[in-house]
């Protein structure tokens, strides 16, 4: 505490740095989460359609169903009967299908299984299992289609978004740690002579270090609390009233506010305490 009050300028600088970085992180973490959440939701729409031959027997159909359930990476299988398929098609394009089915006199659409994968990135595996090189493995399968164009677009677009946000998040965390570490380094550098004197009168490394670490904890905690306070105010006044209107703001997958507060506080305290302790090591080698 004495150190803090006597070297208040560097300590204040360190606290401010902590406040700013924690603020940026506190805003960015929910944004990253909302973005990846949205991206994942979009990826959930990637499916495989397994079309069944009209001539398939009941036995063949049930074997196919079991095989689908046993295939790896399959999350769920939805059965779409011929009637259901027609109904959906009519919904999409009422005019064309009413006329078409009347013209044909029968339902031209095949029954199908709609397979949702666990991991959209490994969609190809399922396709390869069911129909390697386009040749269906099981009797009863007419065709396996994964709507390639759509899938590829979805996967590459969401992949890019996810990679970008992850990269940004990483960069931001790195920058925050570097910034805090550097500020702490400066404040300790200003006191390196003090450390040297302490070493000369025979103080052990830990005897010298612990006041600095405690100082780091205090600085980190004060900075963390201040930034959390600001974040809370911002949340109450800006985000909450708007969240009804913007889906991104109300994204259910974003982190809980109390959890965010706890994470931010711990990170602030840990980084600044560890920063103090580690930076000091350089000056302890006398």
């Amino acid at each position, binding site marked *: 505490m*004495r*150190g803090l009050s*006597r*070297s208040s300028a560097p300590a204040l600088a360190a606290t401010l740095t902590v406040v700013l970085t924690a603020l940026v992180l506190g805003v960015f973490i929910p944004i990253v989460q909302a973005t990846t959440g949205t991206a994942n939701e979009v990826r959930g729409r990637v499916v495989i359609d397994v079309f069944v031959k009209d001539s398939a027997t009941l036995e063949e159909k049930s074997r196919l169903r079991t095989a689908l359930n046993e295939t790896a990476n399959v999350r769920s299988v939805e059965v779409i009967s011929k009637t259901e398929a027609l109904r959906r098609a009519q919904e999409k394009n009422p005019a064309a299908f009413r006329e078409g089915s009347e013209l044909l006199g029968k339902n031209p659409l095949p029954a199908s299984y709609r397979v949702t994968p666990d991991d959209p990135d490994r969609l190809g595996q399922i396709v390869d299992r069911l129909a390697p090189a386009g040749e269906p493995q099981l009797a009863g399968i007419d065709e396996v289609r994964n709507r390639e164009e759509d899938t590829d677009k979805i996967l590459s677009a969401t992949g890019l978004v996810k990679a970008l946000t992850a990269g940004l998040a990483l960069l931001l965390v790195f920058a925050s740690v570097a910034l805090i570490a550097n500020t702490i380094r400066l404040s300790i550098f200003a006191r390196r*002579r*003090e450390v*040297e*004197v*302490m*070493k*000369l*009168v*025979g*103080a*052990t*490394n830990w*005897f010298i270090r612990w006041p600095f670490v405690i100082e780091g904890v205090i600085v980190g905690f004060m900075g963390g609390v201040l930034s959390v306070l600001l974040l809370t105010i911002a949340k109450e006044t800006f985000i909450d009233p708007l969240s009804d209107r913007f889906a991104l703001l109300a994204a259910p997958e974003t982190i809980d506010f109390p959890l965010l507060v706890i994470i931010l506080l711990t990170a602030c305290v840990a980084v600044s305490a560890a920063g103090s302790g580690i930076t000091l090591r350089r000056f302890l080698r*006398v």
Partner: protein
Amino acid sequence: MAAPATATPAARAKRRPPEPQGVPVVELRGVSKVYDGGSVGLDRASLKVGRGEFVFLVGPTGCGKSTCIRLLLKELEASQGEILIAGRDLTEIPRSRVPYLRRNIGTVFQDFKLLPNRTVYDNVAYSLQVIGEPRAAIRRKVPDILRLVGLSTKLHNYPDELSGGEQQRVSIARAFVNHPPLVLADEPTGNLDPETSIGIMQLIYRINRTGTTVVVATHDREMVDKMRRRVIELREGRIVRDELSGLYRSDESTSEFAIRLRGELGVGPEGSPN
């Protein structure tokens, strides 16, 4: 005035210091120190300092005095040779035990090396806190030692509120407050005027009189010659002279010594140490 410093070889032989009794407090055996840049700090230096001795290390700047002091504190490692303190080889002391070595060595420096954001009291108390002295003992010992160095009225001043001489007194108090068997002083009067220097030397002499071994590095030849103590002269890292300079009047009290010193130095403008 220059007579004791330029003794003839015969006189030098006669004045060789006697072999110290028992285990020497400080012993260097062929110690060399070559810095990373290649400059030589110390070149095969050997010396022994017995218990209770008062030794001056003299020589021009860069002759190896400070190197010698820093080697004794294990602030530097010798490139060659052995350094023993109280019979213990410094190379055998692991890094983690170095603080315990330093607790047994009081140090005084030219630039005082006080903690700028602590009061006089706290500065002296720090070296007791370091060794885990109980608070009550600290509260008793610190004012005692500060009274001894004549600073009992400045307990709660900060170092930058004191004169150079007073700051050096604080650092001497800090060096001596836990009564180490060895006190090292590196140019303790380097920053001080002659009058103040005498006071500081008197204080260091007083510490020596309590039985503490004292090694003082200085380039203040005049002061050394007047003090008539053992002198080890270094030149470019080598020991070129080691003799008991002048008479040793063991019954001389500190105040008599100061009076003699003042008279002989003729403190004033011509008594400038440099």
